[in-house]
């Protein structure tokens, strides 16, 4: 187990180094200068130059890369060009929305997908199964922003149960904050739950048709006992993989939903920062997300080893 973990850690570090290089290079070659963007079309060239110096944009690429990575190692993400506040503060604020939202959506996803997927697999071919397959197909196919807009029209404009969007902040209390995240979380969870339920079902069906399942049945276990005791655990590997991917997607990819519900999340921050050429914010946030995804995959890998002892031995 220890070598397995060490190996995984090594690849984690390597991925981070490569990612930092790729991110920095990609973002620095994007055309457009933050100083000119901020000063607009009436600014004089010397004013733009003064601002470039103030922002440190007159330094060489290598200097800026080293400065940035050095800062990251020390836990410093630099100062935003446009907001002029430390990037880490901005990110901390945004994470207070994005992280709970992702967790909320993921919880909904799991809570819905697990029973539905297990039910469909247990009753393969039945009306329940066909209904589940049809509904999840629809869930995958419906664009979530469109579904979000429909929910806004129904629950915010017609019924007035929810606000059309926005986030009151956690200092307004847990309930108002969670309420503000409810519609976005449902919109995010719908396609994810559909995908996860389908994966759960097919993975369970695969395991159920294995020889050892027949053996277990022959040993005298009931269908239900086989399902819960043996099939479920073995079917978890693909499911865990998908959950890992889904969480990183929910953390970083909620940008469209954040725009529909005008939530001050990470996705919207990156989007704004790109249009304003606030490159330091883009670089740092993307790096942070890469870090989160890599770390998550690392944990998923560890979780594999936990559910499947063979992985521990093999490595």
């Amino acid at each position, binding site marked *: 187990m220890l070598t397995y973990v060490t190996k995984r850690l090594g690849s984690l570090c390597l991925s981070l180094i490569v990612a930092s290089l790729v991110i920095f290079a990609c973002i620095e070659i994007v055309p457009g*200068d933050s100083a000119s*963007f901020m000063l607009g079309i*009436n600014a004089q060239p010397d004013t733009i130059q003064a*601002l470039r110096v103030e922002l440190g944009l007159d330094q060489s690429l290598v200097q800026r890369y080293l400065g940035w990575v050095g800062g990251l190692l020390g836990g410093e993400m630099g100062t935003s060009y446009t907001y*002029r506040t430390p990037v880490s503060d901005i990110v901390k604020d945004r994470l207070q929305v994005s992280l709970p939202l992702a967790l909320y959506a993921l919880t909904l996803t799991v809570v819905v997908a697990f029973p539905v997927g297990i039910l469909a697999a247990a009753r393969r071919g039945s009306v329940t199964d066909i209904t589940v397959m049809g509904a999840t197909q629809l869930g995958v196919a419906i664009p979530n922003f469109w579904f979000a807009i429909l929910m806004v029209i129904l629950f915010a404009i017609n019924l007035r149960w929810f606000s059309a969007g926005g986030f009151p902040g956690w200092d307004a209390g847990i309930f108002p904050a969670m309420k503000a995240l409810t519609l976005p979380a449902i919109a995010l969870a719908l396609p994810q739950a559909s995908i996860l339920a389908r994966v759960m079902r097919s993975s369970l069906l695969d395991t159920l048709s294995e020889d050892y399942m027949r053996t277990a049945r022959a040993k005298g276990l009931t269908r239900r006992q086989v399902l819960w005791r043996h099939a479920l655990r073995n079917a978890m590997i693909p499911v865990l993989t998908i959950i890992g991917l889904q969480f990183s997607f929910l953390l970083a990819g909620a940008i469209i939903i954040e725009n529909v519900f005008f939530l001050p999340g990470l996705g919207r921050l990156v989007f704004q920062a790109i*249009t304003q050429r606030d490159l330091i914010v883009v670089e740092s946030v993307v790096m942070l997300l890469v870090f989160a995804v890599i770390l998550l995959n690392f944990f998923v890998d560890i979780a594999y080893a936990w559910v499947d002892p063979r992985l521990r031995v093999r490595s």
Partner: protein
Amino acid sequence: MKSILLSSAALLIATSAYAAKTDVTIGLQLEPPHLDPTSAAAGAIDQVVYSNIFEGLTRFGSDGAVLPGLAESWDISEDGTVYTFNLHSGVMFHDGTSFEASDVVFSLDRARAEDSTNAQKALFAGIESVEAVDATTVKLTLSAPQGNFLFNMAWGDAVIVAPESIEDIKNNPVGTGAFKFSEWRQGDSISLVRNDSYWGTPAVLESATFKYISEPTAAFAAMMAEDVDAFYSYPAPENLAQFEADPRFTVLSGNTEGETILAINNKLEPFDDVRVRRAVSMAIDRQAIIDGAMFGYGTPIGTHFAPHNPDYVDLTGNAPFDPEAAKALLAEAGYPDGFTTTLKLPPPSYARRGGEIIAAQLREIGIETEISNLEWAQWLEQAFRGYDFGLTIVSHTEPMDIGIYARPEYYFQYDNAAFQDLIEALGVENDPATRSELLRQAQTIISEDYVNGYLFQLALTSVVNARLTGIWEDAPTQAVDLTAVSWSE
């Protein structure tokens, strides 16, 4: 009977709740990068701080007139080079320090300093010195008379800031205005509270929140669900008819300083030929663009000047929509079969939607356009600084900016010595009648030179709760002045 009683009681509660309402939430599309109006061009900053938080020596009224601000009155010397401003006394900054002449000296010196990052540094170029005579008197000396000086001092970039708070101005602006900055929840909203020790007429509202909603669909939903009380510069003109039909809302449609033009690269062949530029102008059906791209909101213009300005001359007749005549002009210039050029479009919908329509109209006279959609930062780099464009569409939102035609290096590269002389003469002219005459001449010259295709004056359409009064209908500058906003019963 009971139900009638109940409902009238409910009505009573409702009306008294309305009457008691002392806060307002205004929806806006673009969030400012920071809150220092003196070091960025972003109109989003002025929308929050102009007149609400910061004030200048002079200020714009809702009709664009220049009014006294922190300066109560002023005297101008005979030769027009010395301005003596008499400041209001007893004015306090929001942090409790008092406002004095030395703050004016500090602010103006900061704006015109060597390392200043003021986006409109040109406004201060003619200032030779600023001196505090006593606590409430400032003497300003110009190197040459400047006809526009009081107007220039009304810009959001010329507001008076406090030296004590300058370090943190970007996140905690301290001004003299009727509202104090309260909180900025970045990505979400900015809130202001009333300044109870304001020197002038105090604001009616106790607090105000600007809520940032960038998606047009979300803006619609927020307005419909009454999450916001007004949406300033509403981003989806296609919904305006629906709001107009709804008694809960009023749609305000006013003028802005935004001359929307089809900018032409005057140095690029074949546009260096005035006949080609004229052909382009005559190929454009302005009303079709206003109807198609702006859902009917906008005023056709024939030159680079705001139609609501008293000195405006209607020159739309210089380039009537006439594709046949345009084709003949092209043939005369040596392009009987037309040519191909680039059309670079920045993000706003006037450009993206308008661009498609213009491309179709130009195709009618044989000009093919390769359309590329650019982000602002790309547009600034390629078109604005790199001169790498044939045609582009931009709304020039700065007030009174006809002077850009006197800058040959400005992106459309119009170089006319006679025009440059005229603008120079205008700069030092103080007599109102002569100024008007010069402005009319300037408009006519650029119109007859067909420097750019003049499309329309950008309209400002806002959706406002029907009971909310005092929101500016026109936008002489990019401000959401809340000082006179209140709820009617």
